C-alpha cells in the first residue's frame, strides 16, 4: 500500500467498539477493494480499503475494535498512534468515523469522547437503530448531534441506508477541529486519578438523558432467553460440546472430500506435466518439487475455509464469547484464556487453521501460549503414521480380550499430546510469557444473525492470507527438500560402490561417492536409477546417515532417519518416503499390505529387523511431539510476525520429542520389550 499518500489524498479512520457493526460497515463502504496486512513489527491486523467520497477516493482504515484509546493493549496503542499520526506507515487521518451501537449507547460513546481529544474531526455512524427502536426505545438523532457537537448519521450497512449522508458529512468536517463537548478541570481535588473517566461518563449520562427516551416496558430480551439455555450450567455445556463436535467433524471428515479432490487434481496436473514434458531435471523439479509442494499446501484450503466459516458464524452470532464464558475456568487453570478452546480443538484436525483462529484472543501472551501448544494436538496428518505403525505391529491384538491395542495406542497418543500441551502451557505462562493475569473483562454481545457477506469475506481473506504468506515459504522449503532428495544424481556404477563401501563398515556417508554423472566414465547403462537407490545416495540419504548416531539410541536406523528428515516437510510424507525407501512404490498408502509387509521385513545392514513393535511405538511418540510441518512453521511465522517464535517452537518441540522417544525406547528395552 505504498500509494496511500500519492493516489488518495484523504485518509479516513473507522473506529468503534467491538460488536458495534464496524466490520459490516467497512465491507459495505469498501466492497471487495480491501487489503489486509499487519502493522510493521506487530501482529495487529491492518485492514484498509478504497472509499469513494465526494468524487475523491479516500483510503479507509479499519482500526481494531476498541473500548478505549488509553493504550492499555497493543490494539489500543496502534489505534491511538494512528489517530495521533504517530504510526509511520499511515498518514494522520483527516477524519474519524466513529461507529456507535445505538443499543449500547453509553459505553460506545465513551470511546467517542476520547476521540474528540485527538483534534481530528469525528462523524458518528449510528448503527442498530432498527433493533433499538424495536425494543420500544426512541432516539433523537438531531439532539444527540447537538449535544455531542459533531455530526451523527444513522446507518444501516445491510441496506446501505445512510452511507451517502455519511460521505457528505465526512467531507464537510474535513479540515475542522472538533470541540470537546464536556468540561474537565484537572485541578479538581475530588477527581482522583480517574477523574477524567468519571467526567466523560457524567457527560454521556446527560447526553443520553436528553436524546434517548427509554421505554419503561422491560421487554425480556431475546438474548436473555437464548442465554438461559446456551449458558445454562448443564445444557450450555452439552450444547457447547455438540457444537465443537460438529466443527471437529466438519474439518476432520467433511473436508476430506474436497481435500482428496485437490490432491488428485494436483496429482493429475503432475502426471500431465510429466507426460508432456521431456524427462529431465526441470520436469522433476516442476512435478516433484513445485507441483507436489504447492499441492501439499493448497490441500489445506478446504479445512481453513470450513473452520473460518464456523469461526465467523460463532463470532458474529455472539456465541464465541459464551463458549469462552463457559470454559474460562477450565482454561484459566493452565493459564489460558477461555477463547483458546476452539483453536486448540480445531488443531486436532490441523494446527494451521487452529493457529490462525487464535486471532480471537486479544492478549498477546495468551495468544502466543496457545499458538505454541496447538501443534501438540494430534492432527490428521499424524493419522497415516499412526495407522501404518499400528497396522504393521499392533494390528489385530487385544488386551483384556476385547480392547483393541490399536485403539488404545491411538488414545494414548492423543492423550500424550494433550498432557504435554497442558504442561508446556503452564511452563510458558510462568516463564517466557509471564505476565500478571490480564484483566478478564469480556462483553457478552447480544445474539445477532451473522451477516453472510462478512462471513464470506472473512473466509476469503483468511484463505488468501494463508496461500500468499504460507505459500511462498512452503514453496521455497519444498524445493529445498526436493533438491535434497534429488541431488546428487547417481548412476548405477556409483551405487554399487556406495553399497560396497557401506558394507565395509567405513563411515557410510564418506563412502557414498556420488558424482553428478558418473565421473565421465562411460557406463554400460545410464538408465535412471530406481527411486530407492537414488534416494539413498541423495543428500537426504547422506543426512540420514549423518544423523544415525543421534537417532540410534531411539532404535532408528539411517533409513528411518531419512524418512524422518523428509517428514519435516509434512508428517504424512513419512509414509510415502518409507514406500520409496523400501521400494514398494510411492503411491502406496498407510493401509497398503505391501508397505506394511515391507516395513515388517525391512532389515538393517547387519541383518536384524529394522523395526520392532518398540521402534514403532517410539516413532509414534516422536510424531506426537515433534514439530514436523513446514506449513505450520510458515503460519506461526506469519501469526507471530517473527522468525524466533517458529524456530523456538520447532526446537523445543523436537527436543521434547527426542527425549520422550528416548525414554520410550530405552525404557522399553530396560523392561525387556523389543
Amino acid at each position: 500500500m505504498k500509494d496511500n499518500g500519492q493516489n488518495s489524498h484523504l485518509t479516513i479512520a473507522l473506529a468503534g467498539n467491538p460488536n458495534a457493526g464496524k466490520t459490516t460497515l467497512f465491507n459495505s463502504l469498501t466492497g471487495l477493494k480491501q487489503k489486509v496486512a499487519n502493522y510493521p513489527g506487530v501482529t495487529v491486523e491492518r485492514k484498509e480499503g478504497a472509499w469513494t467520497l465526494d468524487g475523491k477516493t479516500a483510503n479507509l482504515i479499519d482500526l481494531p475494535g476498541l473500548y478505549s484509546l488509553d493504550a492499555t493493549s497493543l490494539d489500543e496503542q496502534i489505534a491511538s498512534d494512528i489517530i495521533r499520526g504517530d504510526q509511520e506507515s499511515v498518514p494522520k487521518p483527516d477524519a474519524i468515523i466513529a461507529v456507535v451501537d445505538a443499543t449500547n449507547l453509553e459505553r460506545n460513546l465513551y470511546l467517542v469522547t476520547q476521540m474528540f481529544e485527538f483534534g481530528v474531526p469525528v462523524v458518528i455512524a449510528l448503527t442498530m437503530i432498527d433493533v433499538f427502536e424495536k425494543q420500544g426505545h426512541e432516539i433523537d438523532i438531531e439532539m444527540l448531534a447537538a449535544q455531542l457537537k459533531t455530526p451523527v448519521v444513522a446507518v444501516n450497512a445491510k441496506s446501505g441506508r445512510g452511507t451517502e449522508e455519511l460521505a457528505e458529512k465526512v467531507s464537510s468536517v474535513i479540515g475542522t477541529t472538533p470541540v470537546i463537548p464536556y468540561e474537565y478541570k484537572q485541578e479538581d481535588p475530588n477527581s482522583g486519578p480517574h477523574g477524567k473517566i468519571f467526567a466523560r461518563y457524567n457527560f454521556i449520562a446527560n447526553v443520553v438523558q436528553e436524546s434517548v427516551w427509554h421505554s419503561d416496558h422491560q421487554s425480556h430480551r431475546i438474548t436473555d432467553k437464548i442465554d438461559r439455555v446456551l449458558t445454562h450450567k448443564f445444557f450450555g455445556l452439552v450444547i457447547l460440546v455438540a457444537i465443537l463436535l460438529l466443527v471437529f467433524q466438519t474439518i476432520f471428515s467433511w473436508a476430506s472430500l474436497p481435500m482428496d479432490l485437490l490432491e488428485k487434481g494436483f496429482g493429475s496436473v503432475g502426471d500431465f506435466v510429466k507426460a508432456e514434458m521431456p524427462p529431465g531435471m526441470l520436469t522433476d523439479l516442476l512435478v516433484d518439487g513445485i507441483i507436489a509442494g504447492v499441492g501439499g499446501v493448497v490441500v489445506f484450503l478446504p479445512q481453513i475455509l470450513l473452520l473460518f466459516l464456523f469461526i465467523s458464524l460463532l463470532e458474529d452470532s455472539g456465541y464465541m464469547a459464551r463458549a469462552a464464558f463457559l470454559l474460562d475456568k477450565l482454561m484459566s487453570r493452565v493459564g489460558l484464556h477461555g477463547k483458546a478452546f476452539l483453536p486448540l480443538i480445531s488443531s486436532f484436525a490441523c494446527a494451521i487453521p487452529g493457529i490462525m483462529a487464535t486471532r480471537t484472543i486479544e492478549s498477546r501472551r495468551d495468544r502466543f501460549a496457545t499458538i505454541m501448544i496447538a501443534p501438540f494436538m494430534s492432527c490428521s496428518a499424524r493419522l497415516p503414521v499412526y495407522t501404518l505403525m499400528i497396522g504393521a505391529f499392533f494390528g489385530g491384538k487385544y488386551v483384556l480380550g476385547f480392547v483393541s491395542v490399536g485403539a488404545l495406542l491411538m488414545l494414548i497418543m492423543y492423550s500424550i499430546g494433550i498432557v504435554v500441551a497442558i504442561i508446556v502451557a503452564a511452563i510458558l505462562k510462568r516463564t517466557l510469557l509471564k505476565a500478571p493475569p490480564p484483566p478478564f473483562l469480556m462483553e457478552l454481545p447480544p445474539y445477532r444473525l451473522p451477516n453472510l457477506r462478512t462471513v464470506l469475506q472473512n473466509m476469503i481473506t483468511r484463505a488468501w492470507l494463508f496461500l500468499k504468506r504460507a505459500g511462498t515459504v512452503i514453496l521455497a522449503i519444498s524445493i529445498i527438500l526436493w533438491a535434497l532428495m534429488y541431488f546428487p544424481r547417481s548412476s548405477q556404477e556409483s551405487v554399487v560402490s556406495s553399497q560396497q563401501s557401506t558394507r565395509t563398515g567405513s563411515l557410510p556417508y564418506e563412502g557414498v561417492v556420488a558424482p553428478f554423472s558418473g565421473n565421465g566414465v562411460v557406463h554400460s547403462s545410464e538408465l535412471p536409477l530406481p527411486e530407492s537407490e537414488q534416494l539413498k545416495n541423495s543428500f537426504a540419504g547422506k543426512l540420514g546417515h549423518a544423523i544415525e548416531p543421534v537417532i540410534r539410541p531411539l532404535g532408528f536406523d539411517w533409513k528411518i532417519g531419512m524418512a524422518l528428515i523428509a517428514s519435516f516437510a509434512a508428517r504424512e510424507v513419512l509414509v510415502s518416503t518409507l514406500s520409496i525407501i523400501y521400494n514398494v512404490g510411492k503411491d502406496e498408502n498407510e493401509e497398503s499390505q505391501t508397505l506394511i509387509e515391507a516395513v515388517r521385513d525391512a532389515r538393517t545392514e547387519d541383518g536384524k529387523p529394522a523395526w520392532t513393535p518398540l521402534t514403532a511405538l517410539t516413532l509414534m511418540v516422536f510424531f506426537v511431539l515433534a514439530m514436523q510441518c513446514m506449513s505450520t512453521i510458515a503460519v506461526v511465522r506469519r501469526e507471530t510476525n517473527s522468525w524466533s517464535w517458529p524456530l523456538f517452537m520447532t526446537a523445543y518441540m523436537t527436543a521434547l520429542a527426542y527425549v520422550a522417544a528416548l525414554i520410550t525406547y530405552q525404557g522399553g528395552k530396560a523392561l525387556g520389550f523389543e
Partner: protein
Amino acid sequence: MTLTELPIGKDARVVAVNGEGRVTRRLLEMGVIPGVSVQKIKMAPFGDPVEIRVRGYSLAMRRTESDAIEVSV
C-alpha cells in the same frame, strides 16, 4: 459487600472500584464506575467467571475483578 458476594439475580449500586492499575482502569472505562447500577446475572458452570449487566450490556468478569468492586444493595 463486594460484587462477588452479591447474590445472583440481585441489583446493586457500585460504591467503589478498588485497586490501582490496568484492571481498575479498564473496569471504569467499561462503565463500571461508582454510582452506576449493576445486576448480577449468572455464574459460569465452574463457578467463574460471572456475568453482570451494566449500562444495558452484559459483561463477564473473573472473581479477581468482581472482588475489587464494592456494591450496596
